[in-house]
């Protein structure tokens, strides 16, 4: 494998709250190869967004990175100062957020907003940026770019706005695009269009994409590799094929069980995961999923399972991974 584009090592993030410290991300390590698409899957509060926002220095004021490294282009993102990060954000790493209704400035024409990033980063001259904005609008599938350039965000539908957000994110040709639940706020039909658009852009530009989502369906349709997170830790990671055929962590299986499958309505039963994901107020010493796990043993309550490598680049953090695999097989 070639050198990874982004290599995160032992990332830790804590939030200071009035009732104590919340351990949001605990020793997360992963890497992304150039051109690779990785899906980060997990429930709300599993730390998936937090981990990636921490890399970009976009944590809320009460959050801080307490450990780890994030190597990107020879620099440690976690050690850069504000100005160095501002240079990287939007130029080398683009971000698409969840809600396109809130992310655009209502007082600025959308064309100007797309141009803005290129001008701020001195990526293009005024004239080039203008021409490029028209190209970008066409590329993300907005008809009649010269006319749409002058529109304000309120004149766009949700899907169209998300296209604009994507155009803004890719304007400076970043090598890495972080998509934080880019389809969650959209209609199902529009979701598919946006995913198709991202897929097209990825292939044409050889851009790496990290797709944060709670929707296993979105992740498995779109990504080369899946990372499952729970309680601020990576539970399982595998290439897509392996992941689909041999899911081996009880949490992953539970996630599949809580998906709706309209095709085989006969023998399919919906199995929601009991309980909720609680914020971790103490540094986890045992498997964070154990309280909700149907296969939990006494050992799971006391000992932290480490990520272990199985065949086909399949990493699992579960004491009982072998049993799960053999049972499923």
């Amino acid at each position, binding site marked *: 494998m070639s050198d990874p584009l982004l290599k995160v090592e032992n990332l830790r993030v804590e939030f200071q709250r009035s009732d104590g410290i919340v351990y949001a991300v605990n020793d997360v390590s992963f890497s992304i190869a150039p051109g690779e698409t990785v899906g980060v899957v997990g429930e709300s509060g599993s730390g998936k967004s937090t981990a990636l926002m921490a890399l970009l220095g976009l944590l809320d004021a009460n959050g801080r990175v307490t450990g780890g490294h994030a190597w990107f282009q020879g620099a440690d993102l976690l050690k850069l100062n504000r100005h160095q990060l501002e240079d990287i954000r939007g130029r080398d790493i683009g971000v698409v*957020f969840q809600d396109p209704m809130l992310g655009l400035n209502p*007082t*600025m024409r959308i064309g100007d907003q797309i141009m803005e990033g290129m001008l701020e980063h001195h990526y293009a001259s005024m004239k080039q940026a*203008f021409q490029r904005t028209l190209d970008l609008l066409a590329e993300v599938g907005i008809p009649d770019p010269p006319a749409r350039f*002058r529109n304000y965000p309120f004149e766009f539908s949700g899907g169209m706005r998300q296209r604009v957000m994507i155009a803004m994110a890719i304007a400076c040709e970043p090598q890495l695009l972080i998509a934080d639940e880019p389809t969650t706020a959209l209609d199902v039909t529009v979701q598919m269009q946006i995913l198709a658009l991202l897929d097209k852009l990825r292939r044409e530009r050889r851009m790496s994409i990290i797709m944060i989502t709670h929707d296993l369906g979105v992740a498995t349709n779109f990504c080369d590799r899946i990372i499952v997170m729970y309680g601020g830790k990576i539970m399982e990671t595998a290439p897509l094929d392996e992941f689909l055929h041999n899911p081996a962590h009880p949490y992953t299986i539970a996630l599949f069980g809580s998906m709706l499958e309209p095709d085989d309505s006969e023998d399919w039963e919906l199995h929601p995961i009991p309980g909720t994901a609680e914020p971790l107020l103490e540094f986890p010493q045992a498997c964070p999923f154990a309280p909700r796990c149907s296969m939990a043993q006494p050992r799971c309550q006391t000992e932290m399972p480490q990520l272990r490598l199985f065949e086909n680049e399949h990493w699992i953090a579960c004491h009982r991974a072998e049993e799960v695999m053999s049972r499923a097989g």
Partner: protein
Amino acid sequence: MAAKTLAAPPAGLVRKTKRPRFGWWSRYRRNKLAVFGLGWVVLFFIIGVIGPWIAPHNYAYTNFLAANQPPSWQYPFGTDSVGHDMLSEILWSVQNALEIALGATFISFLVGAALGLWAGLKGGIADQIVMRLVDFMYAFPTYFLDLILVTTFGRGLAPIMFAIGITGWAGYARLIRGLTLRLREGEMVEAARALGSTQRHIMIAYLWPNVRNSMLVALAFGIPGDLTVMAGLSVVGMGLRPPLPSFGNMIAQAGTNVLGFPWLLYFPAGIFAITLLSFLFVAEGLQEALDPKGGR
């Protein structure tokens, strides 16, 4: 989704097109009262500038031979007990009223904006300090504070302007703090930061345009409020020291003999009331046109 590349348009064509103004004037125009109010306010401002020149007499010119005259061609609004021409006195008053109201609103706004921005952007302790101060100002009868300040510093133009201004900032601080906080925490600013915008650029291009209209509306509501406070001070004898002409003084004095010389009350009180209403109509019109969703 066909990403058809269109024939490149001549670059000048698109950028030259006029920036749409959102038709705020056409929305404002729909409110007839607001249009009337705007007309009156404009007239008021014009008189504020040229009033002293077009007044037939000096406001301090007393003519005991022509005291207590009812309205006539020579004295259209009548004269008071020492022979002041009421028309002239009203024309002169406009200037004082405007100076104090605009000055006081401006002072309130500056103090409120500075504290509100500081609280909203810094948060934490700064926010706590400012908001507790705001609570105090809301709970404390500011009219009483005005009286104390005016008795201490005198009843001239500047002290009254200062007193009204320095006690009226709480509303602005709360509004601006709320707007800043909402925007700072919002996804829009996060998205801008994610694209690598600098803090300065976020302030200029994201925060300011999104609070501009709400601030304008708040200012428009502030002016009639300060006019009322100013007149209120006169009513208890703590307004501008006579003979400096002011609506409050005229109304307060006329009240002492309404039955004998009613025109002394009708003209100044009527004009002052229409002025207050006009400022309010303008403010409401602006709110409808510029900031329909925002609060005052």
